[in-house]
């Protein structure tokens, strides 16, 4: 009896969860499906989920008519470049805060967090003018700098929470054995901390890939990453649903796959350790 009952409720909950999950996922699924339709089928008033002539022409069109790969490459350079540069700056800082704690460590962490809360419009004009004067507008270098700086606090915080979990005794033991600071970092700390560093890198690549304030404002044709390229579809000419879908699919699928690997790190990174 009891088993029957719990099976029944499991069935109901399963049905409910799959229905709601399906509805939430639907806009993405619909985009993927529409990307394989012809433009006429894409706006058909009796839309079909699977029964249509699947075609790859939209992908071919997007790739041949627009410099899609330039934008894709820009996205990669900006997100990966800023994440790696950020790691190089953040790792020493997080190391020193996690292992050489002082009275000021907590205040310093909180101050770093507070820079993340500065609304971008508060510094919009100076950044824009400085970029203009230094010739950084519409360059990948300019965006790498901005992305590194806006994500630096998250990186330091994430790394700090990972480094804190490494027992100090291991480091002390290596110091007793006469390891220099450099050896300590590269031969002892880094191998243990590598999963945490990888997670930090992953989350920051995702955040930078999807950032859509500075990328839209500071770029034009040359350095525009995919966020800005897709935004150009907001003033369409003619039939474009299927092409919009194909371009969107190519922009989101790589990061969706990365994102699914980073679920747990997402919670830790974006809640600044408030929820673990």
């Amino acid at each position, binding site marked *: 009896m009891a088993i029957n009952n719990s099976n029944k*409720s499991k069935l109901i*909950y*399963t049905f409910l*969860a*799959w229905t709601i*999950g399906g509805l*939430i996922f639907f*806009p*993405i699924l*619909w985009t993927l499906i529409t990307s394989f339709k012809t433009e006429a089928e894409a706006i058909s008033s009796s*839309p079909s989920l699977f029964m249509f002539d699947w075609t790859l022409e939209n992908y071919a069109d997007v790739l041949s008519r627009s410099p899609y790969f330039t934008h894709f490459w820009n996205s990669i350079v900006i997100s990966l470049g800023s994440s790696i540069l950020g790691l190089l*700056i953040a790792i*020493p*800082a997080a190391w020193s805060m996690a292992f*050489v704690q002082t009275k000021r460590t*907590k205040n310093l*962490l*909180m101050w*770093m*967090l*507070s*820079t993340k*809360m*500065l*609304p*971008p*419009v*508060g*510094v*919009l*004009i*100076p950044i824009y*003018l*400085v970029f203009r004067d230094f010739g950084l507008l519409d360059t990948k270098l300019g965006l790498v700098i901005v992305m590194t700086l806006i994500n*630096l606090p998250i990186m*330091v915080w994430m790394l700090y929470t990972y480094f804190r979990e490494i027992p100090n005794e291991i480091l002390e033991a290596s110091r007793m054995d006469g390891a220099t600071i450099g050896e300590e970092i590269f031969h002892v700390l880094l191998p243990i901390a590598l999963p945490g560093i990888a997670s930090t890198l992953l989350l920051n690549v*995702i955040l930078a890939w*999807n950032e*859509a*304030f500075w990328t*839209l404002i500071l770029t034009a044709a040359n350095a525009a990453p995919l*966020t*800005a390229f*897709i*935004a150009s579809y*907001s003033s369409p000419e003619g039939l474009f649903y299927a092409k*919009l*879908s194909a371009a*969107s699919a190519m922009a989101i699928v790589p*990061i*969706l796959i*990365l994102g*699914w690997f980073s*679920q747990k790190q*997402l*919670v830790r990174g*974006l*809640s600044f350790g*408030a*929820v673990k």
Partner: protein
Amino acid sequence: MATTNSRSLARLMLLPSVALLLVWMIVPLCMTLYFSFLDYNLLSPGNEEFIGFLNYEFFLTDPAFFESFFNTLLLVGGVLVITLGGGIGLAVLLDQAIWGRNYVRIMVLAPFFVMPTVSALVWKNMLMNPVNGLFAHFANWIGVTPVDFFAQIPLLSIIIIVSWQWLPFAALILLTAIQSLDREQLEAADLDGAGPFSKFFYIVLPHLSRAVTAVILIETIFLLSIFAEILVTTSGGPGYESTNITYLIYTQSLLQFDVGGGSAGGIVAVIIANIVAIFLMRLIGKNLEG
């Protein structure tokens, strides 16, 4: 000796991060503050003059400011209500024993990884378009007049899109928090004859309070700066109906080239964000001690 050495080395290793963030935060902010007291338009460079608080007076008495301030509150508040309500529901549901929970979680989480310009354009065109959108087809099919989302209810449409993007975040944080709940408490409550509702309100919800606060504060920080979704759907219109403060400052600064006015607006936005930030810092600061 070794400790003094490692202490100064530790300081040295902190230096790049601290210096960069200090420059990134202080220098532009001071420049914004300085510009906000100038009559400075990019179209007539070289004519800057000091005008005191006049920019603030203009910005704060502009009807567009009131409308966009109110829109910002509605946008942030609306999205928070939807994502928290939906997030708690989803978290409780996904915490149950169900088949294929990992697959459901992947589907629920997916919208968070979609870049804002893609989600806004997909919703605007393929779902909400009054002629060719899926919602319009559905309305015609059941025999009602389709809604012209961005003409009739522009702000609500944006709230719907942004909620879809942030629901996964709320659900994931809350699910993580629920899963850390002590199961023995629930079993004890079962033995005492507690029903599902009293268990939810007296055990689950209090346990979630911390995570709920975190979600509210973190989402608020990001939601105050919503920009791309407005840019690619309504451009703030019709009129100022879907303009938030971020978008208003953007139009003033980079479309009307009014550096002084835009800077005054920027400082106002910083002050608003600070009020939220103080609460968030307290919450996270408490956690640091624990």
